[in-house]
């Protein structure tokens, strides 16, 4: 069991789940946690040399580039715009999780 993998997988899922929770209940603390989880997931993908690393990093960057404007827009008072940006990030996060599942399957078969 690799703690690094647990840490990586935790934040990839956390990026998606916090994104969903913000969309269901757009609370200020929720969006801060969402941005933190997404940035952490992105940083954890930097410098990785796995099968789908570049694709995973690209999807994470897309999510970040939606959520960072969303947090400023949200606190400047335009909640609707923030939510629509967060939906964009949600799409990227779903793709990210799908890629991560594919990579895990590839890894499992490669190890076998």
């Amino acid at each position, binding site marked *: 069991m690799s703690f690094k993998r647990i840490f990586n997988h935790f934040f990839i899922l956390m990026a998606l789940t916090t994104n969903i929770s913000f969309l269901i209940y757009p609370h*200020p*603390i929720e969006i*801060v946690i969402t941005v*933190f989880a997404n*940035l*952490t997931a992105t*940083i*954890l993908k*930097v*410098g*990785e*040399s796995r099968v789908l*690393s*570049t694709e995973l990093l690209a999807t994470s960057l897309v999510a970040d580039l939606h959520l960072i404007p969303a*947090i*400023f827009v*949200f*606190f*400047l008072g335009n909640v609707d715009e923030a939510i629509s940006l967060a939906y964009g990030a949600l799409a990227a996060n779903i793709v990210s999780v799908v890629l991560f599942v594919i990579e895990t399957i590839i890894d499992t078969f490669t190890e076998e």
Partner: protein
Amino acid sequence: MEALAELQIPLLLLNFALFVGTLGYMYLSGGDFINSLYMTVITIGTIGYGEVVAGSDTPTGRIFTTFLALWGIGIFTTSATVIVRVFFKKDVVAIYRRIMMLNSIKDLKDHYIVTGYDEVTRWLVKYLERKDIKTVVVLGDPSLEEELREHGIDYYIFGVPYRDEYLYAAGIKRASGLVVNSRDDAEAIAIVSSARLIRPDDQFHIYALVSNEELVEKLYQMGASRVVDREQVLASRMVAHILHPESSRITHLFDKIVFAEESDVDIVELYVDENSPYANRTLMELDIGRKYGVNIIGIRRADGELEVNVRGNTRIHSGDVLIIFGKERDIREFREKEVEK
């Protein structure tokens, strides 16, 4: 991309410090995100314009700022140092060069991969280059980069040659062959078996250069197309010079042709199978000498006998191997029109 892995921990810590600071000031100020983020940045960035967010000038706020500054400043300065080091150290040029080289390797086709680096590798690359065959050298020691460049080796990858990812990076899927030049027996076995697993087809040739006679048979079993014992080859070539001192010019000419030192002429073998149009015909009937300007100088018969006295009425049978000599250009034309048609 692996070079950026060094940034992970500082960036994670910086992200965490910003998160904790912002969330803390948001709690103190009742949810003022923009000022909380600003206050965190000026605190951990040692700018310290003042207590710009509501609640930070209270005793609780000051205790929070004290602890945030104590570890936040350390994280910020450490992160800044690491980021500067990664992006501005002299390796950045080397990293850029390697990325560009890896992209060029992706465009290579029908090239040869050479694992291991020594004098033999250098000669190998040089001779293949004369025949316009590109080579990618896979070696383990990055400190040899300057030397590789000095010797005009354009494509190289630093890594463990028997690991699949480095063989893939060297373009094994598109390559014509692999030359294993390793002094380590276990490594040679691992490289040959890894490469053969990736490319089991006959179109991919694996040549191994070894110093251990016992290894020869093992490597053939692993899938090597040709295994050469370097000491034995050197000795046999030297014996050829010793035994033919009076024909040194001819020996020298054949050396040049066979070892590709002479770029203008070439010698090739052509196997005649039962469906070949050459089977059961005489050399006069084929008349390839007049048509293409190449000469059949010998025929190795199916039973292993070498026939060197070839004439117009010499008949070719299926299973024979024709030894053809001529100008490289003429041989190429002959192959294109007669063999690959």
